[in-house]
């Protein structure tokens, strides 16, 4: 086996593959900050058109050409970028919103030649939406390549044309399909697009290298470029991992076919080795971390967001209407007014002359309401200690919430299960009344309380509010979710629910109202990714102070 490609050779190979078969490879995910080394790669890309994450539908799909329409006086439509058979380059791809990525993904699926995504993400969480990472064939990370290791890339157009002509007749070894699928499965790559892209890359690379049938090296290099960033590699120590890793192992094939077709088949572990060598191990970890963080967030409604439909008005600003943006008529007229005498072609014309530069768009800022969900432990054990103080703290907090117009919801758990005392409301009086009447005593169905808080948080989130959970408990959960008094099950249930909170990204706060800090509650808070506040003998005033500090205002 030959040596794996050096990082810069990999970049060169990727560009050659992309130039040879753009529509088969579908694209390149280029992860690098703006730098001279990235410029060396981008200048060698095939001719493309540049788009940015904020691009609107009119530019993508076509629509009314406003400038031409206004000057001509009749409707002129423009063709969108997606209608043209030219590759697109998406700058700042890490900021690509889900809507745009879905549209681009569709374009790639249907007809699009290819997309080059420049991912400048600084953090692992900042990365391309998975709809695109799944579809783009090649991946390059230039982060760790020093400039001195790079050279200028020159792709000869004549060579590219020749390679494209060879593409149709280039063949892959018979076993390539099986071995690439096996390797992808062994790496835990669920998507079936990945191995297909590897095959396309292998074909293109073979055509580029003028091989009639792709050589083993070519297959390896193709796998490096297309698979390495997608999955986890099996441990290095297990040499025969690839044969064993895919669940159900495949004895028929390995036993009967391998002896006669040894020369045709690239042993899978060599392929895996090549991929392993291709990328630093921590990169995979970083990418995976990014994936996990990204997938957890989703597109939920969040805190403050700027929009153009509702909310508090902001000053309007110039722009092109379309994609649901609305024209601010008054501001548009105002900006057009001074120019009228200049623009009139004849002195007696009375028509209003409006140019595209006059158009002003409405903008609004909308802050979603916060809902404070109190989950209060009213069990016997906490009633003994400081239920009264917790009540006092909540009342103080309610006053602050009232001033900010926050919504408040109250859940109490005691006895067998939790009870929603008060659905999200702004009524201070009602909340106080319910709170004062809250009795104590019975078991601690902590899991049930968490579950109800979780459901309530989900509901409020889907109504566009931002939930925050404040859990006040002494942590001695002893009633499981199904109502049975089983301390172990109760704790396991509570922990699982706490993790569900973290997955949804709901901020929270755990306040320990036991007489002594409870280590179990600290674990629970960690699982929720929430601050933990033990309160040994605090008064209501102090509790409320701590709570406000933790909640960020």
């Amino acid at each position: 086996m030959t040596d794996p490609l050096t990082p810069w050779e990999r970049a060169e190979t990727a560009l050659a593959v992309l130039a040879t078969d753009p529509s088969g490879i579908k694209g390149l995910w280029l992860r690098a900050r703006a730098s001279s080394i990235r410029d060396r790669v981008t200048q060698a890309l095939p001719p493309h058109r540049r788009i940015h994450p904020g691009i609107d539908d009119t530019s993508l799909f076509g629509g009314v050409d406003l400038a031409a329409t206004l000057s001509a006086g009749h409707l002129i439509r423009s063709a969108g970028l997606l209608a043209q058979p030219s590759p697109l380059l998406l700058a700042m791809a890490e900021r690509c919103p889900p809507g745009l990525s879905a549209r681009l993904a569709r374009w790639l699926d249907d007809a699009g030649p290819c997309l080059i995504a420049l991912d400048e993400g600084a953090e692992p969480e900042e990365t391309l939406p998975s709809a695109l990472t799944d579809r783009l064939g090649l991946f390059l990370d230039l982060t760790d390549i020093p400039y001195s290791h790079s050279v200028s890339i020159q792709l000869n157009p004549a060579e590219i044309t020749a390679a494209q002509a060879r593409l149709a007749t280039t063949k892959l070894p018979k076993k390539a399909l099986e071995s690439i699928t096996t390797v992808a499965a062994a790496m835990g790559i669920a998507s079936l697009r990945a191995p297909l892209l590897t095959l396309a890359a292998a074909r293109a690379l073979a055509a580029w290298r003028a091989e009639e049938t792709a050589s083993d090296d070519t297959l390896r290099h193709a796998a490096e470029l297309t698979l390495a960033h997608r999955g986890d590699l099996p441990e290095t120590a297990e040499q025969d991992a690839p044969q064993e890793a895919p669940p159900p192992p495949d004895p028929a094939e390995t036993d009967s076919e391998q002896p006669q077709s040894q020369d045709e088949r690239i042993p899978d572990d060599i392929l895996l080795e090549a991929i392993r060598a291709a990328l630093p191990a921590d990169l995979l970890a970083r990418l995976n971390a990014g994936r996990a963080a990204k997938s957890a967030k989703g597109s939920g409604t969040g805190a403050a967001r700027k929009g153009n439909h509702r909310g508090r008005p902001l000053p309007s600003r110039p722009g092109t209407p379309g994609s649901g943006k609305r024209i601010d008529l008054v501001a548009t007229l105002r900006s057009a007014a001074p120019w009228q005498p200049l623009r009139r072609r004849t002195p007696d014309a009375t028509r209003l002359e409006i140019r595209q530069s006059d158009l002003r768009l409405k903008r609004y800022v909308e802050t979603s309401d916060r809902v404070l969900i109190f989950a209060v432990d009213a069990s016997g054990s906490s009633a003994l200690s400081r239920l009264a103080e917790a009540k006092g703290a909540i009342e103080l907090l309610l006053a602050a919430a009232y001033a900010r117009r926050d919504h408040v919801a109250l859940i109490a758990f005691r006895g067998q299960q939790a009870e929603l005392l008060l659905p999200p409301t702004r009524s201070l009086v009602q909340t106080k009344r319910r709170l004062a009447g809250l009795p104590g005593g019975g078991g601690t169905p902590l899991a049930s309380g968490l579950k109800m808080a979780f459901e309530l948080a989900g509901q409020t989130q889907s109504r566009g509010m931002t939930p925050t959970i404040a859990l006040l408990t002494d942590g001695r959960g002893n009633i499981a979710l199904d109502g049975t008094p089983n301390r172990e099950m109760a704790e396991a249930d509570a922990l699982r629910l706490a993790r569900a909170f973290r997955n949804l990204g709901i901020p929270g706060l755990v306040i320990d109202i036991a007489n002594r800090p409870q280590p179990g509650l600290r674990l629970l808070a960690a699982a929720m990714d929430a601050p933990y506040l033990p309160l040994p003998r605090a008064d209501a005033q102090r509790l409320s102070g701590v709570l406000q500090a933790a909640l960020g205002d």
Partner: protein
Amino acid sequence: MSQPFPFSAIVGQEAMKQAMVLTAIDPGIGGVLVFGDRGTGKSTAVRALAALLPEITAVEGCPVNSARIEDVPVWAPPVSGKLVKRPTPVIDLPLGATEDRVVGALDIERALTRGEKAFEAGLLARANRGYLYIDEVNLLEDHIVDLLLDVAQSGENVVEREGLSIRHPARFVLVGSGNPEEGELRPQLLDRFGLSVEVSSPRDVETRVEVMRRRDAYEHDNDAFMKKWRAKDSSLRKSILAARAALPALKTPGVVLHDCAALCIALGSDGLRGELTLLRAARAQAAFEGAQTVTRVHLKTVATSALSHRLRRDPLDEAGSGSRVARILAEILP
């Protein structure tokens, strides 16, 4: 590659294929929701379905694909009145489509050039009598979802805007696909889908290799590949047509109705839509199998996909509601 990948050539994913065939037999089932990982053939299946479906007869030039001349809406541009065969419409609803594009709006071109107040039909009109496909349905904007809910329920699109007052039929089968990791779907919209299936990547290497082999053949040896599968597609189309014809005469014994109700009560599904869809799906399944009467077996075949999305979500249930349905199914209908 003008022809889509053949429906029958899709490897595995039986539940998804079955659900799609059932809605083709009885559009009243009300759509399919396909949730699952990336690259599992969700979009491929929908595109393939479009090619598989039998043609419809429609008035030429009618914006809502009317079957008869008298059904052509009054606002439509004049039509020749000729009846033509055309493929069942499968309309894509792209994410971020504006309200104008979905429901239709004032035809600006005609308003500007000729000063006429005319209606430009939207996607909902074009999807009438066909399918409306929403990829990444869980990322759809809320105000578009609200529109869809309303129209999917009433089968009629009512436009009251810009001085227009127009209504036209919009009966379509909603097909949605998405990846649940990227966002949940509102329960109201979930409920509008008749069937839901979860797809995942095949886990065994043999199946995966077969998928790759067929895809590779489709891309590089298109003619031979299409020829091989076209016969299977057309026999499937024939059995769909036969099932459609057999559907009205199908008998539904009382015991099956009882089973439906018992199952839905045990699962605690909200409303009666669960029972109704379950029954319709079971009838379609029976018709597809060529049976004379609906039996418990048919019911069990379709129960998971008809009911799993109607349960209350349990944050602790990591196995998914599909297995909950299967468990209760085994208890109630042994």
